C-alpha cells in the first residue's frame, strides 16, 4: 500500500554564514507514524525541524503539508497550520505560570463584552483546560497550576512543554530531544505519552540520541548525516549498531529508501 505523506520536504538548504546546516535535505512523514530522526551532534536535526516549524526560513527548497506547499514565516504560522513543536530549549517563559505558558498565543477570552471590549482573559476556563490536559497526558498531578515554570524541575518543565504541543488539536507533533534532560522514569512517561498520541492517530517526529528509545517507539528511522537524509531504515530490520554506524559514517546503507 502506497500512502501519501502528510508532511514532505524537498531540497532544503539552510546556511548560517559559512556553515551549511541543511544541505539539500529531503524529508517525509506519513500519517499516523512515529518517525525518529537520528544523527550526530551538529548533523542538522534541529535545523531541519526549525525549518519545518517556521522557527527559521530555509534558503532553498520546498515544504508541503498535506500536499500543499507551505512557507511559514514564524512558529505561529506553523502552529496555526497544525504543526506543534517541542523545541530542544522548550521555549517556555520561566517567570510565567504553567497556565500562561500553555496558552501563550492562544489565550481564551471571557465571553460577552468583558472579552470583546476589554479583551479580558478567561482565567478559570484556561486553568480548567490546562489541568485537564496535564492530567489527560498522565504527566503529572497538579497542585498549583499558577506556579511559575522556573520553580519546576527539568522533567516537569518538559511535561508542560509537551502538554502544550499536544493540547491544541494539531496535525503533526515534533519533539526535539524530549528525553535528553530526563531521568529514567520521566523519560518513560514522555515515551508513553508519545505512544498515546500515536494511538490517537497523530503523526510524530521524534528527535533523539537514545537508541533504545528510538528502536522501541519508532515506525521508521530517518538517519541524518552532514545536513541531509542519508537513509530511512526500518527499526525491525536493523540493529541499533547498524543505525549508529550509518549516522557516524562507519557504514554505508545498502538501500537508502528501505523504509520509505
Amino acid at each position, binding site marked *: 500500500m502506497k500512502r501519501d505523506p502528510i508532511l514532505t520536504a524537498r531540497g532544503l538548504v539552510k546556511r548560517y554564514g559559512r556553515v551549511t546546516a541543511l544541505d539539500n535535505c529531503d524529508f517525509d512523514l506519513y500519517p499516523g507514524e512515529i518517525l525518529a530522526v537520528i544523527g550526530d551532534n551538529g548533523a542538522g536535526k534541529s535545523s531541519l525541524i526549525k525549518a519545518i516549524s517556521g*522557527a527559521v526560513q530555509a534558503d532553498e527548497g520546498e515544504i508541503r503539508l498535506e500536499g500543499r506547499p507551505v512557507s511559514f514565516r*514564524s*512558529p*505561529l504560522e506553523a*502552529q496555526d497550520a497544525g504543526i506543534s*513543536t517541542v*523545541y530542544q*530549549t*522548550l*521555549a*517556555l*517563559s*520561566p*517567570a*510565567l505560570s504553567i497556565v*500562561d*505558558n500553555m*496558552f*501563550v*498565543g*492562544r*489565550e481564551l*477570552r471571557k465571553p460577552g463584552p468583558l472579552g470583546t471590549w*476589554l*479583551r*479580558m*482573559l478567561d482565567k478559570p476556563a484556561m486553568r480548567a483546560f490546562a489541568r485537564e490536559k496535564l492530567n489527560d*497526558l*498522565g*504527566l*503529572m*498531578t*497538579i*497542585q*498549583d497550576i499558577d*506556579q*511559575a515554570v*522556573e*520553580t*519546576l*524541575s527539568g*522533567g*516537569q518543565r518538559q*511535561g508542560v512543554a509537551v502538554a*502544550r504541543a499536544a493540547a491544541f488539536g494539531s496535525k503533526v507533533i515534533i519533539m526535539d530531544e524530549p528525553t535528553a534532560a530526563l531521568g*529514567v*522514569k*520521566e523519560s*518513560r*512517561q514522555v*515515551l*508513553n*505519552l508519545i*505512544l*498515546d498520541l500515536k494511538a490517537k492517530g497523530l503523526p510524530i517526529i521524534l528527535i533523539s540520541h537514545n537508541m*533504545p528509545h528510538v528502536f*522501541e517507539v519508532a515506525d521508521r528511522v530517518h538517519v541524518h548525516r552532514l545536513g541531509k537524509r542519508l537513509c530511512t531504515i526500518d527499526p525491525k530490520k536493523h540493529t541499533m549498531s547498524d543505525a549508529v554506524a550509518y549516522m557516524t559514517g562507519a557504514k554505508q546503507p545498502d538501500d537508502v529508501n528501505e523504509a520509505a
Partner: protein
Amino acid sequence: MTDMTQTAPPRGQSFEHDLEKSDRTVAAFERTKRGPLGTIQHGLHGNPTLVPVIVLGLSIAAFGLIAGGKFFSAFNLTLIMQQVSIIGILAAAQSLIILTAGIDLSVAAIMVLMSVIAGNLAVYMGVPAPVALLVAFAGGTGAGLMNGFLVTKVKLPPFITTLGTWSIFYALNLWLSGAQSIRSQDIDKAAPLLKFFGNTIAIGNARVTYGSILMIVVFLALWFLLNKTAWGRHVYAVGDDKEAAELAGIRTDRTLLSVYGLAGLVCAIAAWASIGRVGSISPQAYYEANLHSITAVVIGGISLFGGRGSILGALFGALIVGVFQSGLRLADVDVLWQVFAIGWLIIIAVAIDQWIRKVSA
C-alpha cells in the same frame, strides 16, 4: 496517569519494567520543606510588590514618629501624592519598557516636548485645546513608536536608542519653544483645559489634585492590561525570554512596538498633567525626570532584566521616594541626605531583586 499496565503488556525496555512498581508521585508538584528565609524568598517571588508595600508602610510609620503630626497629616500625605504624580506617570511608562528588559531614557523628553507642542498650538496658534491635546497624544505615541522601531527593526539596544532620542526630543523642544516658557496667565486666558489636572478636591485638610487621581487611574488601567489581557501576558513573556516567546508563537516585534507606542502615549498624558502641576509650560523642566522614573521603577521591585514585577510596584516606588523626601525635609535634614537615602534605596532594591530571582524549586 498513563496506566495501561493492567490491560496491555508493559512498554519499554526490560530494565524499566520495575518502574511499574515504583513510587508514582515523582512528577507531582511536591511541596518541599523550606526554612523561614526560603519561605520569604518564595513569598516575594510570587508577590514581588510586597517589598515596596512594606517599605512604604514602614517609612510612613517611621517619618510619622520622627516628624510627628506635620508629616502624618492628611494635608501632607496628599501633598506627597501631588508631588510625585508626574514622576509617577512617567514611571508607569518606564515600567512598560523595563518589563520588556529595555530602558527608556527619553520618557521625560517626550513629555516636555509634547507639553510644548500642546502649549504652542493652543496658546499661540489658536488651535482649540482638545485638538492640541490630541495632537500631543498622537505625537507622544509617534515618538514612542520611533523608539520601538529603532529597537525592533534597526535592532539597536534600547539604552542607546533612547539616549539618542532623548537628545533629539530635547533639542526639538528647545527649538519649538525658543527656550521660552509659556506663562501661566497666557494658558489661563487661551486654553484653561491644559491646566485641568491642576484642579483639586478638598476633603477636610486633604488636597487631592486631579493629577494625583490621574496617576492612580493610569496605573490601574495599565495593571489591568498587563494582568488581565493576552497582550499583557505577551509583554511579560517577551521581557522574560524573547527567543522563547517567539518560538512559542508570539509576534515579539509587534508586541515590543506596541509597548513603546503605549509608553509614548502615557508620556503625553503626563505632559497634560504636568501643565496643571507646574502651572506654566517650561522647556527646561523635568530634565532629570528620566532618571527619577527609573528610580521609582527599581525601588518598586520591577526587575531591570525584564519579565518580573508588578507595575503597581512603580507606583509604590514613586510614593516611597516622595515619602522620604517629604519626611526628611520636615525633619529638617539637609537635602543632600535625601539624595543619599534614595541612592541606598535603589541599591537595596536591586539587591533584593537579585536574591528573589535566585529562587529554585
